[in-house]
């Protein structure tokens, strides 16, 4: 008697060639096959706001900010090898610059946000440059400490509104504007970074992650490339910060809150490290979930942590990588 066992067999769908960046499109159905997930994501983000009330629309706005942070975290961690916990630094610097420009110079949000994005990213990068020679956990620790540093400077010197912050900043004229501004920013950032990591610049950055010695031996300054990468990641975060300041019409030290550094990591772990779209998805799941769990009070954090631990232990590849595999492969049982 032969024991019959079954095993699951995975087969690649023919169109997805296993080598990177090589596709053969020969029919509309194949184009549709490749476009479907992208269209689904874009339409999903644009349509969902119609079906929820004002409160949840606001939640989507902050989910968008976290999505930008998660994207910038994933880009730096999975493609440059810098584990940057400086989300709060980016948000804080971006938020303060936009808020101060609005408060003291009465510039409209549509002027302050671009300025805060670019100037804020430049400042954040300058602050992080001395730490760029650190690797792995050391860079993570320093980037995590910098926001705390900024908070205590503001409190100790009592500048920029001190502990109170500055309120009554200009807000956006309408909820649909603030909603679609952030959603458009998330989509633009997502597709831009996806493109970037496959361009020469992105290839070099991935080289830095895999083996920085070989990059140096190839005549390329790794510091110069890391600086550019940090600047790009900071652009996303500072935009989020500037937007956040105008969203609530308020700036204060809680712009440097640890949530902005931690939640993006959670979103990235949940969504799938290195998939770029995964972290965005993760942020759009985790932020509303944390709102929905508000009723549980402090227990909320416990539930939150449990979900995260479950993901890390049982599905370390993350939602997006699983979905991607399911989409690109047939699975069938066969008898052995």
């Amino acid at each position, binding site marked *: 008697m032969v024991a019959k066992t079954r095993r699951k067999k995975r087969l690649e769908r023919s169109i997805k060639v296993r080598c990177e960046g090589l596709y053969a499109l020969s029919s509309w159905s194949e184009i549709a096959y490749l476009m479907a997930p992208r269209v689904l994501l874009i339409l999903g983000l644009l349509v969902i706001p119609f079906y929820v009330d004002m409160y949840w629309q606001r939640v989507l706005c902050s989910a968008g900010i976290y999505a930008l942070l998660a994207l910038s975290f994933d880009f730096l961690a999975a493609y440059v090898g810098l584990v940057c916990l400086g989300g709060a630094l980016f948000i804080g610097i971006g938020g303060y610059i936009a808020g101060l420009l609005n408060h003291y110079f009465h510039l409209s949000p549509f002027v302050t946000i671009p300025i805060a994005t670019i100037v804020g990213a430049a400042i954040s990068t300058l602050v992080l440059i001395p730490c760029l020679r650190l690797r792995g956990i050391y860079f993570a620790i320093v980037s995590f400490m910098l926001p705390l540093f900024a908070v205590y400077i503001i409190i100790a010197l009592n500048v920029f509104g001190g502990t109170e912050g500055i309120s009554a900043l200009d807000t956006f004229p309408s909820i649909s504007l603030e909603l679609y501004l952030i959603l458009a920013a998330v989509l633009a950032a997502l597709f831009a970074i996806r493109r970037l990591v496959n361009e020469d610049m992105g290839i070099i950055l991935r080289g830095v992650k895999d*083996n920085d010695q070989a990059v140096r031996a190839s005549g390329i300054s790794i510091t110069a490339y890391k600086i550019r990468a940090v600047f790009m990641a900071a652009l996303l975060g500072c935009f989020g910060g500037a937007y956040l300041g105008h969203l609530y019409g308020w700036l204060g030290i809680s712009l440097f809150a640890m949530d902005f550094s931690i939640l993006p990591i959670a979103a990235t772990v949940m969504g799938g490290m290195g998939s770029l779209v995964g972290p965005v998805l993760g942020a759009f799941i985790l932020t509303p979930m944390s709102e929905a769990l508000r009723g549980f009070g402090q227990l909320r954090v416990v539930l939150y942590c449990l979900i995260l631990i479950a993901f890390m232990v049982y599905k370390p590849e993350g939602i997006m990588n699983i979905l991607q595999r399911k989409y690109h492969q047939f699975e069938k049982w066969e008898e052995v």
Partner: protein
Amino acid sequence: MAESPILEVTELSKFFGGVQAIMNVSFALAPGQILGIIGPNGSGKTTLVNLISGFVKPDKGSVFFKGRNITALQPHKIANLGLTRTFQVMRPYHSLSAFKNLIVPLNSPRVKRSSAGKLGDIDAVAIDILEEVGFERDARVPYKTAGSLPLGYLKRLELGRCIALKPEVIICDEVFSGLSMSEITSLIPLLERLRMEGITLMMIEHRLRELFRLSDRVVVLAFGRKIAEGTPDEVMNNRTVKEAYLGTETKV
């Protein structure tokens, strides 16, 4: 030496704590030569490569490349001058396909300057270089992720990474190690062709037979010191070299 040396090392020393990794080592490399560096394990060969290519700063002594002192320069600056190296431990950019690995050196200032923006399709250039180092053209190998390639291909990829930079000197840190006899015999013509193209090679090796066949001169290191230098024949018959490898004869 008739020609002035392309690479010259003078009285180089490096200590790691109390350990003398390299002690007063001097030698010179004539253009177009193949120089072999041999020595027992732990004799400081890889440290020497790191010192010359700028990855480790020496405590004493200097390195001159084409008459210019490059001792204090950073590795990427040295590479841009035309001196590059392979690594003993193969760590390709494993998530990238083989030919994408070469996109990195092809974006270096040196290549951009020399091609004056007329590099054309950079991917095609990369695949040409891979063919040059022995990857089958049109086969799927160049498109496979580097992490999935066998060691023989990785060694070729590493040489390809150096060639992409259009260097004048390549320091090969144990390219033969871990390869089978047939893989080594297929690599040797490639190295000889590089020499024909005017690239000066400095080869750190443990495979003495193949190295002696290739090199014009050989430097022998033991415990961080240079104990012999000469043509392969001279070195092979040198008493101190035999002792360093096999130990001394003593009467019991």
